């Protein structure tokens, strides 16, 4: 095939990729942010290694190409525990890589840089593999044999440019790159369709390879499982290794975590991505068998190109572009992810020290270029020593070294920074000794004698005398076992360090810091988001923003200038608890003060009542003493003078009876008062008030006849729910009072007014003197020889029934009182609280009724 045609096709394809990325940043933004683009972008996992290397591996080792895709399937099924959790962490702390997580989890200054440097070194072979795939495919199709290269160099430069343009426009790498995502998703579709098309066309053209393969004994191992324990161990190792690689490869972290716009995309990806892997693996075995049957002398890694070339150059060109798409997507995303690692963990602390942090974006772009050039160098220097899959697997084992520190850090609180560091260092060293250095030795960069080791027990590809394991399985088992053992062992024997104190700071100062480092837009956005946050929360937010852009270690250093140490968590909790207690105490004290006031008022009332009782007792004693003295004196006279004239004697006896009656009345009223004070509730019952008034009039009729007073009445029929006996007592008290003062006439009225019963007792006596009007309802205020308790009792009884009593102005004396037709609240001893319209004895129109 003409090299110029290939070059033109390559250039056109890369141009198309450019347009797709532009579309993703423009009109196709919604498409790039959708769940399907997310699921397809995960397929950046399927690289040139998948497109060409899998067929090569299937053609030489049989089914062992499959575990490389079964591992990621398993990991993605576990998404609620891994990716779901990672997304939460990444959103909270703006993580851009596992190295960020290691720093965040362990706060050890060496862990992040070590992980970053190791990943760069470990993944160079993998990047070189992609360049090799492109170069190899180009040379194969163009028919040129030597030198192997140099289409790889301009392609590497173009891809570096692409990654710079669509991945590093701004400093914040945790922002989403829709153009990049759409381009990667597009490439995933291209490689899947191209591979399926090549497979179907080959089957259609060359026929079913299985019957022929089954008749060829030398091909039988390709159709059978790996043999024996070593074979099974290799199978399990590959599943585990690829699962870990899928989780820890920087490009996978980038597309699955950093570029994720919505965690709800994960469930779809959890079945769509495994389905993608299943589909892209369907043509592998048929193509491998067809290659073995029809192209026995050809390089198996090139079957995907060589077979279509037998049928149609156009199909071969399609296969070439499929391989290119698989390689370019990986190269772009991986180089971007590695450049972020380099700039955040290796460069930014240095730039900060030399006050050149402002040039970080430039350095990140240069890092992409550097990574690409190093990969190209690796490919040129060591690339021809290993098959495609062999190179990829070395990188996979390197990436898997992050697993113990990361997974234990994620799920086990007991992992210590020392344990993580020891594990990572040990695993890295053993990876280099068992895999990386032997690869260099095979490429001639180290003496071949290196492969023999300094001692038979220390042979790089057979430690402790192990034999029968393939180098990758051996290197993976050895390095991961040592890594895990050191991480666990050192963690168990080292103390968990006290977590570093949180920082706290003013929002304004933090915003100014962000403005300086990330630009004015970031400062304003931070102000908007952080306003209202507490100091430690604002500082944590600022740290996350900075960490996403300049790396967590540098962010921590930058934050020192704008923050101070927050009080320890325990102290904060104590302060908060004290504040809570103080609030509770204040509420309690307020309640206590209210209760004290209430008690004080009650005490004052009780005191007043007690005083009133004393006064009452004194008054009662005084009142009782007068008639008793009279009774005693009269009785002594009658006893001492039996010969008193009859007339005198009758006069004395009449006086005696009068005083005894007075005493009896006094005692009755005192008893009534005592009942009232006892607080017995009124016995409410439907009562015919008119009938009750007539009964009272009948009771006082003898007295009125004796006094010669005419009783008048004006009564309406009124019914009420009230205490009949108490109302009768009120009426009798008022009538007795009126009869005592009346000259000729006493009038009793009963009306219904405003929902109340209004009573009025009017006499034509001299009336109450002006100076006595206010004291008329006080106890023992008698102005005419009564007990002085009648009106007092009447008032208390009226108030106890929810009514009001007052003395009206006018000729003679008019006492009026009301009773509610239905009592809603009664106070047996003190009247209607809160509803009483005015002071006792003051009529409603004066007292504010």
């Amino acid at each position, binding site marked *: 095939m003409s090299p110029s045609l290939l070059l033109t096709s390559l250039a056109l394809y890369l141009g198309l990729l450019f347009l797709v990325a532009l579309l993703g940043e423009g009109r196709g933004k919604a498409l790039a942010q959708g769940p399907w683009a997310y699921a397809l972008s995960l397929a950046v996992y399927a690289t040139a290694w998948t497109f060409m290397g899998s067929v090569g591996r299937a053609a030489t080792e049989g*089914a062992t190409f499959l*575990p490389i895709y079964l591992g990621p399937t*398993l990991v993605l099924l*576990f998404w609620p525990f891994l990716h779901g959790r990672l997304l939460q962490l990444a959103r909270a702390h703006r993580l851009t890589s596992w190295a960020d997580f290691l720093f965040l989890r362990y706060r050890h200054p060496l862990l992040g840089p070590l992980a970053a440097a190791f990943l760069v070194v470990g993944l160079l072979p993998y990047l070189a593999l992609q360049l090799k795939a492109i170069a190899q495919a180009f040379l194969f199709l163009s028919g040129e044999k030597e030198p192997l290269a140099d289409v790889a160099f301009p392609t590497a430069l173009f891809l570096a440019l692409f990654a710079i343009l669509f991945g590093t426009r701004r400093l914040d790498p945790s922002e989403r790159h829709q153009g990049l995502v759409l381009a990667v998703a597009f490439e995933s579709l291209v490689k899947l369709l191209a591979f399926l098309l090549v497979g179907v066309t080959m089957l259609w053209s060359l026929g079913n390879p299985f019957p022929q393969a089954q008749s060829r004994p030398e091909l039988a191992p390709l159709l059978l499982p790996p043999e024996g324990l070593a074979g099974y161990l290799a199978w399990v190792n590959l599943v585990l290794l690829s699962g870990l690689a899928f989780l820890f490869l920087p490009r996978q972290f980038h597309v699955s975590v950093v570029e994720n716009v919505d965690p709800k995309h994960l469930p779809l990806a959890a079945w769509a991505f*495994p389905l993608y892997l*299943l589909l892209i693996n369907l043509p592998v075995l048929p193509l491998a068998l067809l290659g073995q049957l029809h192209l026995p002398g050809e390089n198996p890694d090139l079957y995907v190109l060589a077979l279509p070339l037998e049928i149609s150059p156009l199909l071969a060109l399609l296969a070439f572009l499929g391989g290119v798409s698989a390689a370019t997507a990986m190269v772009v995303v991986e180089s971007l992810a590695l450049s972020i690692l380099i700039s955040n963990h290796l460069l930014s602390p240095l730039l900060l020290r030399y006050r050149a942090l402002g040039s970080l974006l430039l350095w990140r772009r240069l890092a992409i270029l550097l990574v690409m050039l190093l990969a190209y160098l690796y490919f040129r220097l060591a690339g021809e020593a290993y098959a495609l899959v062999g190179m990829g697997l070395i990188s996979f084992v390197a990436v898997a070294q992050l697993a113990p520190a990361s997974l234990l850090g994620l799920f086990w609180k007991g992992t210590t920074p020392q344990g993580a560091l020891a594990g990572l260092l040990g695993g890295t060293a053993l990876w280099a000794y068992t895999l990386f250095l032997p690869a260099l030795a095979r490429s001639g960069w180290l003496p071949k004698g290196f492969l023999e080791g300094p001692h038979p027990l220390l042979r790089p590809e057979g430690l402790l005398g192990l034999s029968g394991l393939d180098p990758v399985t051996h290197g993976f088992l050895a390095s991961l076992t040592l890594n895990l053992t050191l991480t666990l062992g050192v963690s168990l024997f080292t103390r968990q360090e006290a977590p570093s104190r949180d920082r706290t700071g003013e929002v304004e100062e933090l915003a100014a810091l962000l403005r300086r480092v990330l630009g004015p837009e970031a400062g304003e956005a931070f102000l908007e988001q952080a306003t209202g946050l507490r100091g430690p929360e604002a500082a944590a937010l600022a740290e996350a923003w900075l960490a996403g852009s300049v790396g967590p270690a540098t962010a921590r250093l930058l934050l020192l200038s704008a923050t101070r140490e927050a009080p320890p968590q325990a102290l904060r909790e104590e302060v908060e608890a004290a504040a809570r207690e103080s609030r509770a105490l204040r509420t309690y004290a307020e309640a206590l003060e209210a209760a004290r006031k209430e008690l004080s008022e009650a005490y004052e009332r009780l005191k007043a009542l007690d005083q009133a009782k004393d006064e009452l007792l004194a008054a009662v004693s005084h009142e009782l003493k007068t008639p008793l003295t009279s009774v005693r004196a009269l009785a002594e006279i009658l006893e001492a003078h039996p010969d008193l004239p009859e007339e005198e004697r009758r006069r004395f006896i009449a006086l005696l009876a009068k005083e005894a009656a007075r005493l009896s009345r006094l005692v009755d009223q005192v008893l009534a008062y005592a009942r009232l004070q006892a607080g017995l509730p009124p016995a409410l019952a439907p009562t015919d008030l008119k009938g009750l008034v007539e009964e009272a009039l009948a009771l006082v009729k003898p007295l009125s006849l004796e006094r010669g007073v005419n009783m008048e009445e004006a009564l309406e029929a009124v019914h009420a729910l009230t205490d009949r006996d108490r109302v009768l007592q009120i009426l009798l008290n008022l009538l007795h009072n009126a009869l005592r003062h009346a000259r000729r006439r006493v009038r009793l009225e009963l009306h219904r007014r405003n929902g109340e019963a209004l009573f009025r007792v009017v006499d034509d006596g001299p009336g109450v003197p002006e100076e006595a009007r206010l004291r008329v309802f006080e106890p023992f205020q008698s102005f005419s020889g009564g007990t002085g308790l009648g009106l007092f009792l009447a008032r208390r009884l009226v108030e106890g029934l929810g009514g009001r009593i007052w003395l009206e102005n006018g000729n003679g004396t008019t006492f009026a009182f009301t009773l509610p037709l239905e009592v809603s609240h009664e106070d047996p001893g003190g009247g209607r609280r809160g509803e009483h319209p005015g002071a006792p004895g003051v009529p409603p129109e004066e007292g504010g009724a």
Partner: protein
Amino acid sequence: MKEKALALFFLAILLFLLPLDLLFRQTEGPWGLPPLYLYLYGAWGFVVLLAYRFFRKP
């Protein structure tokens, strides 16, 4: 969702990591296809189908 994911994860481990050497010793199976691959692709497809049933609705 978490329980289903966990159950499916363990089922997939069981299906993918069986001692295949003991189970598939023939190169020819139904429709002339190798039984090892029929099993592996079938088990894989089954797991994907279950994942689709479990995860399609959030």
